[in-house]
C-alpha cells in the first residue's frame, strides 16, 4: 500500500509530480551522421534561432558533445524532444539544478 504524504497525495504520485515539475533542460547530443548544415537548419526551424545562434549551438554539440538548447517547463520540453526526434536528432531531458 502506498504511503500518503502530508499533502494527501500517495507517495508514488507525489514522486511523479515532483519529477515532472520544475525546470527542465532540452539537451541535444552529438551524432556522427547528421550534417552540420542540417543541424543548424533544424535549430532554426524548431526553436526559431537566428543563423549565428543556431550555428553556435551546433558547434557546441559538435565540439563538446552536447548543447542545452532550451530550458523551461517539462511539458513544453517534452514537446521539443519529440520534435527533435522527428528530425532524428538525439535529444534528452535533464532537470535544471539551478532552479
Amino acid at each position: 500500500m502506498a504511503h500518503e504524504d502530508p499533502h494527501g497525495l500517495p507517495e508514488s504520485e507525489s514522486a511523479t509530480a515532483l519529477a515532472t515539475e520544475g525546470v527542465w533542460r532540452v539537451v541535444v547530443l552529438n551524432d556522427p551522421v547528421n550534417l552540420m548544415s542540417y543541424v543548424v537548419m533544424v535549430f532554426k526551424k524548431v526553436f526559431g534561432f537566428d543563423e549565428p545562434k543556431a550555428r553556435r549551438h551546433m558547434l557546441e554539440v559538435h565540439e563538446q558533445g552536447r548543447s542545452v538548447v532550451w530550458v523551461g517547463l517539462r511539458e513544453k520540453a517534452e514537446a521539443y524532444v519529440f520534435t527533435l526526434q522527428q528530425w532524428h536528432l538525439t535529444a534528452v531531458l535533464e532537470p535544471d539544478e539551478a532552479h
Partner: protein
Amino acid sequence: MKRIEVKLSLPVVAPLLDVIKQLADGLGKDLAVPFSLGDLDPDFRDAWMAELLAAQGDDVRALLALFDDEFFADGVIAFDASNAEPVLRACSAVRLRLREKCLGVLGDDALESSDLDIEAMDEQVRKAFMCYLFLATIQELIIQHLDSSILES
C-alpha cells in the same frame, strides 16, 4: 513556389536505390534514433512512438517517391516546399540506419570526417558509403536552395 530539379546519373544512382529500399523497410518498424523519453507514462509513450514511427514511414515514402518513372526515364528528381522537409528527414533516417547496419566497420570518427579511402572498402561497404554520401548531397541541395521555404512552412 520555388522548385529545384536535379539530373542524376542513372547508372550511378540506380544501384544505390536497392540499398535505400532495403533500409526503408526496416524504418517502417523501428525509429532511426531510439526514443529517449523513457520516464513517460507508458500509454503516452506508446502513442508518441506510434506517431513518430508513422511520420518516419511517411517521410521515407516521400524519399522513395522521388525515384519514380520520370526518374528512370530521364534521371531527374525534383524538390519543392511540399517534399523538402520529409525528404530531408528521410535522408537523415536512412543515413543513421546505414551507419548502424552497414558502416560500423568504418568507425564514427572516420564517418564524421568522411576522410575515407573508398577504393580500400569491400564492395558492400563501398555501396553503402556511396549511398550515405548521395543522401547527404540531396540534403545539402535542399538546405542550400529551399532553406527559406522550410523555415517559413
